[in-house]
């Protein structure tokens, strides 16, 4: 971890978070209770990147949805800049919301196919005073994410995967957030486009002192983008610590299993291992 990050103030603090989903009975099934997150605690400082790594269905996205204010926790506290976001009134939540912005995994479906890039970003800039400022901001935002300003007249289907994800990042940056929640931002990208996005995210973090909550199952991506990592399994953190230390000297079996699975050179020729 960089020295500056250690000294900086805590931005997001999650304490003993529990998220339980109640599934109502249907004609075929009985009532079900799913404990998606089961007592998770961590904090993210300003300018720090914190990654949650785990298999599909382990509860990573539930934590992100709760921090964004979309899923109400069953227990525990989520504080952003010292304020418990689930105890704020509507007006204060509206003030806080621009500061936490998501970048979703499904970069294609998170852009409205009937809007041009310009309109997509202006939607996020609605709080700005007038159209002139908005147009200026769109150009500036596109430049920030390394896209030509002419791209703003295109529709999402006219863009490549990498360009779409950059538009998602530009839209997330539109309201000057302090924390970006990145849900598998690179995993469905091509190799080269993925590398370009990692470079971009690292540059934005440095330039704007952004903090990231990164959700991924790809350890090589996480290693390049995060300062600290938590490994998650069945709704709980099994291990957490500084990225390099945790990946070089894992102590938990699940961490070792994930590291081993990311190495495909030892594929079994004979069976299921």
């Amino acid at each position, binding site marked *: 971890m960089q020295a500056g990050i250690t000294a900086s103030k805590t931005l997001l603090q999650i304490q003993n978070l529990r998220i339980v989903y109640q599934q109502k009975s249907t004609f075929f099934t009985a009532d079900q209770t799913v404990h998606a997150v089961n007592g998770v605690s961590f904090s993210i400082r300003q300018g720090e990147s914190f990654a949650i790594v785990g298999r599909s269905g382990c509860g990573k996205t539930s934590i992100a949805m709760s921090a964004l204010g979309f899923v109400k926790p069953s227990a525990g506290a989520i504080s952003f800049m010292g304020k418990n976001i689930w105890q704020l009134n509507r007006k204060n939540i509206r003030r806080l919301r621009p500061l936490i912005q998501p970048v979703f995994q499904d970069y294609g479906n998170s852009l409205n196919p009937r809007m041009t890039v310009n309109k997509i970003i202006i939607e996020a800039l609605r709080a700005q005073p007038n159209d002139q400022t908005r147009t200026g901001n769109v150009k500036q935002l596109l430049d920030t994410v390394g896209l030509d300003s002419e791209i703003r007249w295109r529709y999402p289907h006219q863009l490549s995967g990498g360009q779409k994800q950059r538009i998602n990042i530009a839209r997330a940056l539109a309201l000057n957030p302090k924390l970006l929640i990145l849900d598998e931002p690179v995993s469905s990208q*091509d190799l*080269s486009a993925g*590398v370009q996005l990692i*470079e971009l995210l690292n540059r934005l973090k440095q330039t704007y002192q952004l903090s990231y909550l990164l959700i991924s199952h790809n350890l090589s991506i996480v290693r390049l983008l995060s300062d600290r990592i938590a490994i998650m399994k069945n709704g709980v953190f099994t291990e957490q610590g500084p990225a390099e230390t945790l990946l070089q000297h894992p102590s938990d079996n699940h961490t070792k299993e*994930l590291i081993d699975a990311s190495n*495909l050179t030892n*594929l079994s020729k004979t069976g299921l*291992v």
Partner: protein
Amino acid sequence: MSLLTVENLSVVNSPSGRSISILRNISFSLNSGETLAVIGETGSGKSMLCKSIIGLLPPGFSRSGNIWYISSDNTKISIITAEESDLLNMRGREIGMVFQEAVASLNPVVRCGNQITDVLSVKSKIEKNKRKKHALKLLETVGLSEPERIFHAYPHQLSGGMTQRVALALALAGEPQLLIADEPSSSLDSISKKYYLNLLNRLKQENNLTLILVTHDVDEALSFADNILVLYAGCMTEYGRTGDIQKSPAHPYTKALLDIARALKENNLPAAIPGEISSLTNPPPGCRFHPRCPKAQDICRVKEPSSICISNSHSVRCFFLVDLS
């Protein structure tokens, strides 16, 4: 003898009078029991190549060239000129396919087991009263530990990894010789992905399957395939044995992909290939990779490179090969 031989395959889409070249002069052959990995960026034509082989191109797309296939009764069939009824007969029995989005390829309102028995009723000679038993065996073969539960489950009740394995069981139901897997592991987490690849390896050996694996994960192709075909914007840039391509990639695009994969494996942030993949609707003249190529010269901007054979099993399309020494 080669099970599948593709000769100068080109695919053209002609929407409203325009002609868009989706694939250009693709040639390769695949021996029985071998695995071919098709790698390239999104929009390079990987899925279109698979759909051409199985004869499932969307309306408005036309093929030229030849695709020869040796069927299980040793008949040489031209897939391009075959009647639709013959192709219908071949699909599932001779050539199986696992589609990119497993969930979308399964019927959401039919139980998984019934989807398999439906395939068995059409594509195999198994008697009606033995189909369920065979479907359960297939589910077990693809590594599902509770076949009876999965048999009665709907696709939405299963995890991504399980759905992907049900789709594999469906593709295997007709006992095909050739299996085409279009990015089967791209949506899986690393543990499920490794499990799935190990499973494919085992099935390949047990059933002497020939496999075409489409992927954009270079590491997956290097660890899994016998041969690699590299596509870029619909053009074949390099084709050869995995060992040859790994040791001495001849095309600058292949080398760039391998360098990125290697750097990521060594936990370094590699240099990305500058720019974006060329659009198929408005491709650059000459070599389609030249706007991003570090070795591009004037000839690359005007003339399309022809195929150069480096060895019997290694060919490349480039005017300025990477230094092979």
